[in-house]
């Protein structure tokens, strides 16, 4: 087993990996940008190395820096987490060249699966159903039009190098082909530096279902069943669960078998995920393969009882998978809510800033994976996801009710979060009945409509008034103390006092 692992990431996933390392008695090495000196992952790890300024292009994405720290620190392996360098074949190759174990699949596999067109071809050849679409690269408007006419509308025009909701356009009819071609084509060249395009049939109101696989270096591949990730906003997952509600057992078994088939076809090693679109008749189509740990891996961990990060590390260290497929069962139901620093009432605007107060929900059947602590600063440079909350229940209803209970306990002060938005989803009859698809939020969420429900308005008004009395009392003390010789640190406070006292200050005296 490794003695030291470098974690080439930040935030909750870096902490989560460091926890696994600690439980394996492996020393963890954090890297951090200048904006992350006081971040939780730095505090948590055994070692910490500064790798550059705040922007990730100058720190977390600089392969040379990471490799350099590996050498200086004596790390034998690198865990890339998700995002940043996790699906960067060059990085995986560089690790290999330098004799450092990359905790993930081979550079070749990352490369193949990173190219959406190649991935599609490989999977199709392996007998995995794929979304009907162009079989190769399209380079001209004419080719795009021809392909679309063949497949039939609606379809999607996509950039090969696109992802995360960028570099794609829905084409509903022949009329829209030209403008879509121009928009996606220019975005592909300018944003991704790769002009290649392809076309896919657009599945109406699909569900997003994915299968977790684990493969060791000796050819053993197992799947850890399905996850439902249809609750998305701007193509970002918001809530995930396992098992997928309402999935027929026959479909579930077939998905598992086919995922193993796909993983075998590419010679996959490590933990990976095959994403599928599921239509209303429970037909499924391969979407893409993520050659890394997913944000939502925790729901699978809970229902199958396997620590996926430990499994990744064991596999990378040359271990044999200790489980056969028959050992893997889904017990109960797990749900994950991603907690974002954003304001659902203002079009989900991100809310970086200092977390003045943080109280996490606790008790039976839940798990908090956090990248922040009380007093931490959420930097503007990185992803706004600050935490994940996972609940488990004997069945889906218990998991949902427990999640509602837990979200009600969740208190974050100083920044805004999407906690109330999660509550809204969890109370929605369509979500409750499992009737979800990737359009759920767009179809159902009307921010203004929810604002006017005030079941406890008198309590809220009384609370504000009590807080106002407390505030006034403290202000009185502060003004009395103001006469003193104050050190520089106090000036700011005085200035703000003056400001707030300015217009109607007489009103504040009793």
């Amino acid at each position, binding site marked *: 087993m490794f003695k030291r692992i470098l974690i080439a990431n930040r935030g909750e996933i870096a902490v989560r990996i460091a926890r696994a390392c600690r439980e394996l008695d492996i020393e963890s090495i954090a890297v951090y940008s200048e904006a992350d000196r006081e971040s939780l992952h730095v505090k948590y790890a055994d070692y910490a190395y500064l790798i550059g300024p705040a922007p990730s292009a100058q720190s977390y994405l600089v392969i040379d820096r990471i490799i350099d720290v590996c050498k200086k620190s004596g790390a034998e392996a690198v865990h890339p987490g998700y995002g940043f360098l996790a699906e960067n074949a060059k990085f995986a190759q560089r690790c290999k060249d330098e004799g450092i174990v990359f905790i993930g699949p081979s550079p070749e596999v990352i490369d193949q699966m990173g190219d959406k067109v190649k991935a599609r071809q490989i999977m199709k050849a392996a007998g995995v159903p794929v979304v009907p679409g162009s079989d190769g690269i399209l380079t001209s408007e004419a080719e795009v039009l021809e392909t679309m006419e063949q497949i039939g509308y609606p379809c999607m025009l996509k950039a090969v190098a696109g992802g995360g909701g960028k570099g794609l356009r829905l084409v509903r009819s022949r009329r829209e082909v030209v403008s879509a071609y121009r928009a996606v084509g220019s975005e592909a060249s300018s944003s991704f530096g790769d002009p290649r395009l392809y076309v896919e049939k657009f599945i109406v109101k699909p569900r997003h279902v994915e299968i977790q696989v684990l493969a060791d270096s000796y050819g053993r591949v197992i799947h850890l069943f399905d996850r439902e990730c249809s609750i998305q906003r701007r193509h970002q997952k918001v809530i995930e669960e396992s098992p997928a509600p309402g999935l027929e057992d026959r479909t579930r078994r077939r998905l598992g078998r086919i995922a193993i088939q796909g993983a075998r076809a590419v010679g996959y090693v490590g933990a990976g995920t095959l994403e599928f679109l599921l239509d209303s008749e429970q037909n499924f189509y391969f979407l893409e393969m993520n050659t890394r740990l997913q944000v939502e891996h925790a729901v699978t961990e809970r229902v199958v009882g396997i620590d996926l990060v430990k499994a990744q590390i064991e596999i990378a260290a040359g271990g044999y998978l200790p489980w056969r497929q028959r050992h893997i069962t889904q017990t109960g139901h797990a749900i994950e809510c991603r907690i974002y620093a954003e304001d659902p009432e203002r*079009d989900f605007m991100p809310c970086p800033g200092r977390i003045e107060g943080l109280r996490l929900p606790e008790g039976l059947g839940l798990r908090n994976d956090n990248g922040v602590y009380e007093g931490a600063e959420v930097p*503007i440079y990185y992803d706004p996801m600050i935490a994940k909350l996972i609940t488990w229940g004997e069945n889906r209803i218990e998991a949902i009710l427990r999640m509602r209970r837990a979200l009600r306990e969740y208190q974050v002060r100083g920044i805004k979060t999407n906690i109330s938005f999660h509550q809204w989803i969890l109370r929605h009859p369509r979500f409750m009945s499992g009737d979800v698809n990737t359009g759920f939020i767009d179809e159902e969420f009307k921010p203004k409509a929810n604002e006017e429900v005030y079941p406890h308005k008198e309590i809220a*008004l009384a609370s*504000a008034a009590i807080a106002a*009395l407390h505030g006034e009392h403290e202000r009185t003390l502060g003004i009395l103390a103001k006469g003193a010789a104050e050190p520089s640190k106090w000036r700011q406070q005085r200035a703000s006092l003056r400001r707030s006292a300015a217009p109607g200050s007489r*009103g504040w005296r009793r």
Partner: protein
Amino acid sequence: MAFIGKLGDQTFTVDIEETGKSVYRVSVDGNEFIVDGKKTGRTNYSLIVDNRSFEIEVDNTDDEYRVLVDGRNYHINLVDERRVRVGGAQGGLELQGRQKVVVPMPGKIIAVLVSEGDQVEKGQGLVIVEAMKMENEVHSPITGEIKEIKVKPGDTVEGGALLLIVE
């Protein structure tokens, strides 16, 4: 002590008096009740009203109170009643006149969608700011004319920085 509280589009008169240690007589639009209200943290309160127990978080910036009750946020504008009488129609009423548009969070200016002198509608997008890998539009709080623009694309701004003035 009397306050004028605004919640959504409703306005309330809130009277409060501390009648014992952390015990308050509160009246909302004349509806009176007794609150046993202990401060149990920096912004955390435990309220018992008619044996109903509430754990509450209260944050405020000046007169704007954000109250969390049972997992639900209440945005309340609470002003001392005398101040309203003295200062006239302030706080929480319809915005009018010269408005400073500030950026709600730190980030980078991606685009300025208007020019000085432009006529804008209430809610119209004015500036696109990128923060945390996402682009966000800042909207106009009123219908009016763009008076001054203080930023240009590429600028990095702190939270609360002045973007432009619309009148």
